[in-house]
């Protein structure tokens, strides 16, 4: 379970987010939706302990992110923007590297990697080096790497970016499976349709602030718009591109 209260972060004079509150319960998929530059990545990075919030607090399963980052790191799995894999290592080696950093022993690590390779249907390319992988294959490897220590909470930063229809469908099923396993799944996106098919709860951010939090039906009711995209634009407000 992830909770944030009044999170704020500035880079120099630019205020990336201000006063962001969020709540993402276990066994549900929470979407962080917003236009480019709304502060989605900054929020996720604070939750992933990579950035420190200037203001406010956030808790992952009760551990505060800046007070006890070590505990938070053990209970989250992070899929960063753009995968970030090591091209000269094989898919298995990429996954095993993070597993080893989490302190998994040799035998446990091997078993866990085998399990993930099967779960994510990576048998075909698991022993190949990552250089030359398709974007879909990369995302799978990065996701397996994020899940290697069986985290209760999963943060996905724009996971469907650059994926084709088939790969997007496959990923969607994986995300739903993660939810069924009882995990707390938070993912960011700027595509309303994608969010609509997947999320249970929706948090819309714009200009560094939360503009809406609730279910899709609540969004329709609140805005009086039947079309979700119109509702989204209504909440965020027309912005110059």
């Amino acid at each position, binding site marked *: 379970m992830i909770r944030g209260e009044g999170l704020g972060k500035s880079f120099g004079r630019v205020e990336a987010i201000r006063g962001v509150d969020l709540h993402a319960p276990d066994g549900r998929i929470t979407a962080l939706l917003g236009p480019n530059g709304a502060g989605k990545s900054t929020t996720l*990075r604070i939750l992933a302990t990579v950035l420190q919030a200037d203001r406010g607090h956030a808790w992952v399963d009760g551990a505060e992110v800046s007070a006890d980052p070590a505990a938070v790191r053990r209970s989250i799995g992070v899929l960063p923007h753009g995968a970030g894999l090591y091209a000269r290592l094989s898919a298995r080696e990429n996954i095993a590297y993070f597993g080893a950093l989490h302190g998994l022993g040799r035998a446990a690590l091997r078993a866990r990697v085998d399990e993930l390779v099967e779960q994510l249907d990576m048998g075909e390319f698991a022993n190949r080096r990552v250089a030359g992988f398709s974007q879909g294959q990369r995302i799978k490897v990065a996701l397996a790497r994020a899940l290697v220590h069986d985290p209760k909470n999963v943060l996905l930063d724009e996971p469907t970016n650059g994926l084709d229809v088939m790969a997007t469908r496959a990923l969607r099923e994986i995300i739903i499976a993660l939810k069924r396993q009882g995990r707390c799944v938070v993912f960011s996106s700027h595509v309303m349709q994608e969010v609509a098919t997947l999320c249970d709860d929706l948090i819309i951010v714009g200009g560094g602030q939360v503009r809406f939090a609730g279910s899709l039906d609540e969004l329709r009711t609140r805005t009086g718009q039947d079309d979700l995209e119109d509702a989204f634009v209504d909440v965020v407000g027309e912005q110059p591109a």
Partner: protein
Amino acid sequence: MSGFSVVLAKECRDNFRDIRTILASFSLALLGPALFAAMMAFVLNTTLGESRESFRLAVVGSEHAPRLMEHLGRFNVELTEVTLDDPRQAVRDGREDLVLVIDADYPRRLEAGERAAVALIHDSSRMGTARRNYSRAQQMIGQYSRKLGILRVQLRGMDPALLSPIAVSEVDTASPAARAMTLLTVLPYLLVLVVFMGGFYLAIDATAGEREHGSLEPLLSQPISRAQLVLGKVAAASVFSAISTALFLIGLSLSLPFVPLHKVGMSLAIDLNACVQMFFVSLPLVFLGASLLTVVASFAKSYKEAQTYLTVVILIPTLPLIVTQMLNVEATTALMLIPSFSQATLISDLIKGEALEWAHVAVSMAATGTLAALTAWVAVALYKRERMLV
């Protein structure tokens, strides 16, 4: 396995798979000693060659000067009578190195007590043996000329000393061995470069490269302390640097026997024991190099940017060497505080077969080691800042 060793193992494995990193990291260590030995051998063979070995002197018209031939024959000269229409062209074309031309009126002028002329044709742009043989021939003929002059003066009842009012005696205190030693001053530069080149590409890949490929962010959200993470990377760069140093020392001990140092009465044999000692005294410099490269590469956002910075960094360790060499500084215990200079001095001593002064070794290792630890601490501190990411 601790996080430190996981990172160390991963960085080493990752970089050993990159053929370009391997080539760039170890090529200087592998080629350096061979090039150095070849250069030494060339210099020794050409400028310091045996001065009494025989050489060929082509003569045109030797029948005109039998006495001169007799004089030259006493030296170790292969006199060869040749018939050349154009001796100058023969030298220009490289068919002959040196031609002595004696004119047909040489005997007549000599008999008449006049000044007789011979021509010694050579090409001064040619280095090495050709130049040395020319000056030897010139000396031999000059000696014969002076002998004749003295005889003529004596026949006229005068003191031969009149001919040379000032007698210059030349004394060169530099032994050929000392001249060869000046060549050895290149070796410390080479060693320092080899140490730094070894860790160069791994340090970039592990810092700027990691950032460029977007793998730094997920790595920083793993449960490993920044200290273990950064020290693992520094250690991996040290491993590559140490391999580079070891290859260089092994290469040096294998190639030095091919340098004809016996010609100048020297021997520079590096045995296994000396090799191990050299490696041992270089180790603190290996750690310092790896830390320094990691610190500087961490500021770069891309591989290319890091390469630009580090090319400048790699010059830093050569500065103490250049300055101390220009000032002609004697190695003292206090100077052993200077990294790179101290290692260069200790290694030069070992190459010359001199015993190490343990005070020097202790100060050098402690000073450079401390600086390496401080630099590594700076690297860790850098990675604790979140600006590392954005």
